[in-house]
């Protein structure tokens, strides 16, 4: 009998198969059949013929299903498109939107323009239209977008450690408001971070009115408020300084790392770099004198550097002050000059300052005691700098200190403690025993971004919103009002600080948007308010809101100065310990940020770690070596930490970078269950927050491995970074071209083309086939080594823009870091100390060599040079890397098979290979390959930070700097669409900014069209300082550098006629002195080192 076969499962896509006409017509009889477990007649399948027939049909259905796999199923998986139901206004998928906002950090803000893709922020840029910004940013701003998508963020409201809901939290906050309305806030204490927000100040003012007995405290583990304190004391009125390094011809830094570790560094870099830019002989440059303990970013760029222990900087300051101001002459006697400091250094430095009245600038660093700041203020006054290179603005005084709050807590006087941000259990001074003290409050409410070390000592824990998710406002250092505008709804329902404050205060307006608007109304006025508000959000600043400079006299507070006492200089048995703000994790707040952890420290080039830095001499006397773990004892407390010998560090000083060794920071900070780096906070007491004396060390016997990206410290006399002093540049402007094997003085033997370029026996494809060379655009880039200060903002910007993954400490140790751009940092020493140096010595012997004591430092950003005759292109077996018509060396990732021959052939080693699928595989288990996947929550979040315009590369593929090809293509497309029939397809100069260029606060990187002779990059390449790294290989790189020019003072005792690297080079390359004019053709061959 004929059986009706059961239906087979229908495919969702493709052609619908049917098994029988009954199924197709879906008759009731068929439905009856389909609903039964066995087809009717199954019980009758005793008959052989029927059973075989049945089995045949069944197998046919399996076969058809199998065919389905081969046929319709062979297609790519079905992908869906989900359009909007209603299109949001002004939004087009594929076209990014930009919103102006700002990043508040401590007392200031960085004005930003953030790129938003599909309603989420993906890239941070500076706001170039802000009156006090050139669009540059710093590493922290660039990396902050990754923090937004941090899977370890606080994502929930908790009460006593268990989940609570949002409404319950809000009820609790209203309860607090009610409770303290009854007694005017008695017993209510607020512990906050420093904030530049006028809205917070206004809300605080409203709460102070309602709860006059409430107490307010501010604590920042790294606090720059001393500048305001000193300026207020000196001026006699509440002011804070605003420095203008661009107006200064001579800058004296008293342990002030204004280029890196102080606040507002991106703005200070801009001002400083402006004074360093020169184009032709005769141009003037500024001069930087640095007196410091550590080798800091500012010290890296100094023309003259004096290294003294932190406690002795006051002696230098007093000595210089005595020379300049008769009022302060008596002070110098109290502070004897440290050993080894020449009085001439002081005298000449003072003379140079005095020679430039109103155009000099004296800066004191945050680690220095108040007295040094007062001296700096006095010096600025005496040098007539007030109002010129330093302006003063009205500044509100600070609130109570953490020590005062600890007293209240220990006295049981705190009923409710509200902690807004911060992480005091981790970073409070150890003598306050904060973990216990905080618990002494009856109720502790905290608003924080992570459930960190302080989480356990809180009752209510509220998740904080990232600044990219928040409404608010801030003021930049010049006083201009800037908005904090959210680009995305809080991902995890986080709250902003002003909202929490408003709720606790029981104020009417609790939504941060409304609060910010109210504040704006108070500042900008009510007429045309909506227009002004819209413009404010659009521009990213309120025009005309900069602070008016306040007149300040030239005097100082002699009484406060008189109170300063000298501190004994450190010695071998009484070492001095300095607590420093780390360049990667700040005070510890970025410990869980992968980009910042993997960012090589600008000085030590160390990733994923911190180390105790010591000088060579000190290490030698104490018997310390790199990688040794030592125990450091200060005031009865001790920690263990690994040693690293740092060239240029002051003797008998131990530098301890703060911010590491956190116990509860997240999956990056607590990688593989451990903790990145060591914690220096346990040594820090409230009386010695910045430096402590009387430290002792002992070797524990353990060792620690570091992962540095640059192990070799010396250039070995190779002219990779070329520099000269200003005098040499003026006399021999083309010195940079006269170095190395392709030096102009030496190239008589090289056959030349008519235009002077070396003649190649192989005809370049651009010449043999003109169709291959675009006549519209030819891209090139120029990096000015005079402007580059080595801040590494470009590295993080490139990582953010190009979806560059992090690889983890172990892989960095194998040299597999993925940064497309790196900053090479070399130390150069005095020639007479180096003459016995063996260049073949292993890198771990460098720490013992004498030349590293007082080195000069040179930095150079290194990325793909985009050579016209690229050595990488000719060796690729699959032609994955090619040259395009516009001069770019292009990488087709899908073609690459991973032979790595191109990286082998690249002389600059700028190509990076994906050894593992760093994006998809967990960093702690890379070697498991496809067997391991990341935890789902972090992968979903990490995907959001990726730039959709750039491919995310997989394992086995080579990648490298592409000159931001996505930005180039987008600009070309926009120009072509705009051009229409006009044929005006050339992109105007300045439209395309590569990510590194846009992030650089010093404007050191310039990209553009070299076919356009008027473009900025063409003009820079015309300069006499222009040279190509490894130019003798004749690969014609499109990326050229402008040689560095130092500006030392010939009268200074440590004046050297040549910068160390030039000295090294001339000593090594005996017949290639760039400062000797090339011989006339036909002259004798033997050249002597001529006088210069």
């Amino acid at each position, binding site marked *: 009998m004929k059986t009706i076969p059961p239906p087979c499962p229908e495919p969702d896509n493709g052609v619908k198969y049917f098994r029988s006409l009954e199924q197709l017509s879906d008759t009731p009889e068929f439905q009856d059949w389909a609903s039964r477990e066995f087809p009717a007649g199954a019980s009758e399948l005793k008959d052989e013929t029927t059973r075989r027939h049945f089995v045949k049909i069944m197998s046919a259905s399996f076969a058809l299903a199998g065919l389905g796999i081969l046929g319709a199923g062979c297609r790519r998986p079905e992908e869906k498109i989900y*359009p909007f139901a209603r*299109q949001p206004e002004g939004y087009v998928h594929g076209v990014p939107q930009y919103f102006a906002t700002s990043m508040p950090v401590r007392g200031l803000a960085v004005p930003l323009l953030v790129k938003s893709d599909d309603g989420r922020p993906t890239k941070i840029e500076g706001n170039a239209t802000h009156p006090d910004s050139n669009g540059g940013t710093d590493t922290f701003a660039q990396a902050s977008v990754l923090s937004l998508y941090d899977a370890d963020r606080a994502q929930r409201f908790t009460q006593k450690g268990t989940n609570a809901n949002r409404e319950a939290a809000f009820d609790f906050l209203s309860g607090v408001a009610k409770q303290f309305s009854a007694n005017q806030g008695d017993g209510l204490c607020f512990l906050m971070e420093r904030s530049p927000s006028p809205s917070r100040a206004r809300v605080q003012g409203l709460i102070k009115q309602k709860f006059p007995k409430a107490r307010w405290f501010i604590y920042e583990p790294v606090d720059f408020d001393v500048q305001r304190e000193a300026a207020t004391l000196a001026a006699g009125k509440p002011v804070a300084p605003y420095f203008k390094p661009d107006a200064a011809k001579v800058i004296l830094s008293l342990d002030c790392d204004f280029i890196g570790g102080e606040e507002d560094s991106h703005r200070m870099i801009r001002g400083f770099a402006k004074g360093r830019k020169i184009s032709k002989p005769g141009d003037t440059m500024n001069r930087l004198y640095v007196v410091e303990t550590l080798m800091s970013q500012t010290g890296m760029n100094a023309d003259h550097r004096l290294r003294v222990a932190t406690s002795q900087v006051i002696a230098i300051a007093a000595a210089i002050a005595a020379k300049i101001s008769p009022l302060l002459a008596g002070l110098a006697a109290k502070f004897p000059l440290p050993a080894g400091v020449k009085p001439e250094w002081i005298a000449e430095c003072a003379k140079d300052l005095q020679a430039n009245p109103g155009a000099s600038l004296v800066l004191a660093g945050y680690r220095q005691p108040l007295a040094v700041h007062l001296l700096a203020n006095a010096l600025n006054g005496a040098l007539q700098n007030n109002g010129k290179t330093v302006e003063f603005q009205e500044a509100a005084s600070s609130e109570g200190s953490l020590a005062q709050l600890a007293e209240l807590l220990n006295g049981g006087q705190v009923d409710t403690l509200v902690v807004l941000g911060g992480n005091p259990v981790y970073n409070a001074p150890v003598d306050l025993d904060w973990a216990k003290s905080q618990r002494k409050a009856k109720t502790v409410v905290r608003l924080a971004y992570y459930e960190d070390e302080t989480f356990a000592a809180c009752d209510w824990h509220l998740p904080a919103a990232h600044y990219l998710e928040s409404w608010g406002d801030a003021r930049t250092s010049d006083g201009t009002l800037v908005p904090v505008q959210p680009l995305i709804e809080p991902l995890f329902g986080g709250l902003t600080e002003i909202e929490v404050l408003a709720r606790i205060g029981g104020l009417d307006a609790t939504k941060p948007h409304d609060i910010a608007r109210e504040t704006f109304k108070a500042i900008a006025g009510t007429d045309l308010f909506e227009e002004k508000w819209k413009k404010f959000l659009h521009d990213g600043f309120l025009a005309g809101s900069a602070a008016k400079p306040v007149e300040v006299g030239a005097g100082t507070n002699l009484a406060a100065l008189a109170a300063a006492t000298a501190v004994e200089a450190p010695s071998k048995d009484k070492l001095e310990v300095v607590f420093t703000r780390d360049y990667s994790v700040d005070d510890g707040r970025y410990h869980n940020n992968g980009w910042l952890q993997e960012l090589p420290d600008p000085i030590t080039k160390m990733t994923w770690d911190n180390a105790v830095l010591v000088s060579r001499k000190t290490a030698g006397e104490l018997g310390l070596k790199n990688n040794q773990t030592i125990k450091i004892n200060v005031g009865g407390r001790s920690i263990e930490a690994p040693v690293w010998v740092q060239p240029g560090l002051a003797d008998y000083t131990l530098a301890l970078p703060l911010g590491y060794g956190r116990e509860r920071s997240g999956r990056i900070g607590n990688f593989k269950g451990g903790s990145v780096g060591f914690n220096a906070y346990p040594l820090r007491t409230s009386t010695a927050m910045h430096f402590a004396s009387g430290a002792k060390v002992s070797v524990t016997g353990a060792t620690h491995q570091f992962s540095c990206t640059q192990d070799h410290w010396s250039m070995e006399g190779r002219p990779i970074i070329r520099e000269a002093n200003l005098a040499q540049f003026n006399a021999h402007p083309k010195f940079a071209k006269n170095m190395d094997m392709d030096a102009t003085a030496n190239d008589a033997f090289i056959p030349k083309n008519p235009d002077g370029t070396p003649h190649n026996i192989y005809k370049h494809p651009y010449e043999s086939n003109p169709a291959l060379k*675009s006549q519209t655009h030819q891209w090139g880039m120029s990096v000015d080594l005079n402007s580059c200060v080595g801040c590494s903002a470009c590295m993080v910007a490139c990582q953010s823009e190009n979806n560059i993954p992090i690889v983890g400490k172990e892989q960095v140790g194998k040299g597999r870091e993925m940064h497309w751009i790196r900053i090479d940092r070399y130390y150069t020493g005095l020639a007479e100390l180096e003459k016995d140096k063996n260049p073949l010595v292993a890198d771990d012997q460098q720490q013992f060599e004498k030349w590293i004591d007082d080195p000069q430092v040179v930095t150079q950003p290194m990325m793909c040079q985009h050579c016209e005759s690229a050595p990488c292109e000719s060796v690729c077996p699959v032609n994955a890397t090619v040259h395009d018509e516009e001069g770019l060396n292009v990488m087709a990732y*899908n073609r690459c098979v991973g032979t790595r021959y191109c990286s082998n052939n690249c002389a600059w080693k700028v190509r990076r290979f994906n050894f593992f699928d760093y994006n998809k595989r967990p960093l702690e288990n890379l070697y498991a390959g496809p067997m391991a996947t990341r935890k789902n929550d972090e992968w979903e979040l990490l995907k959001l930070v990726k730039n959709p315009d750039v491919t995310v590369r997989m394992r086995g593929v080579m990648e490298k700097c592409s000159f931001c090809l996505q930005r180039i*293509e987008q600009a070309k497309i926009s120009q072509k669409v705009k051009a229409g*029939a006009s044929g005006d397809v050339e992109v105007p100069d300045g439209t395309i900014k590569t990510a590194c260029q846009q992030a650089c606060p010093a404007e050191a990187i310039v990209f553009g069209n070299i076919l356009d002779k008027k473009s900025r990059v063409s003009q820079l390449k015309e300069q006499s300082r222009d040279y190509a790294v490894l130019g003798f290989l004749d690969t014609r790189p499109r990326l050229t550098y402008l040689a560095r020019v130092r500006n030392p003072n010939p009268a200074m005792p440590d004046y050297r006629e040549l910068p160390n690297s030039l000295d090294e080079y001339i000593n090594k390359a005996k017949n290639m002195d760039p400062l000797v004019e090339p011989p006339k053709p036909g002259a004798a061959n033997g050249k002597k080192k001529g006088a210069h």
Partner: protein
Amino acid sequence: MSDIFPKWTNWLPLKIAIGAVLVGTAATAGSWYYLTPKYSNVGYQPVQPVAFSHAIHAGQLGMDCRYCHSAVEKSWYSNIPTASTCMNCHNQVLKDDPKLALVRESAATGKPIPWVQIHKVPDYVYFNHSVHVNRGVSCVECHGRIDKMDEVRQVQPLSMTFCLDCHRHPENHLRPPDKITDLGWQVDPKTQKQNGEKFKHDWKVQSSQNCSACHR
């Protein structure tokens, strides 16, 4: 020694060699034909959640492509229209028709209609619609006579060869910019070449054949 191998194994190496060549040729030819986009992608015509007919809307009613695909001139991505675009007419025309139930639901609740994507290039290829649509390339060049399709199917392979064929000789495919959405517009090959060359010259069409144009 006795025979270890029977006599017929004498022919085995030759048979294996011939067999390998035949199998290799078949595999190569098979892959060449069946596994390229021209075979696997052309004709792809999935079932869509809403039976939208371009033949009626774009063909019969003469609606311009850009009325719905509004972002094609601004962005790399040509958008599927939002439900509110459909409701512009369909809140009056066929306003209770069961075929449009999903559209009405989407417009009312915001729930997106799960359209099935038909034309897709790999993720490492960055194609930009706006630069093509604004510079003389008609929709029909890549998408075919959509205005005659009741159900959209893919008519061109959209492989790299396909893109390069046009990029190498754009004059064969360029047309006046106001005729972009006129899918039936045609002109004889000689005039096309002439006009195309002029267009290429006047507009400075630089259809890059280099990897950097699409692969980032």
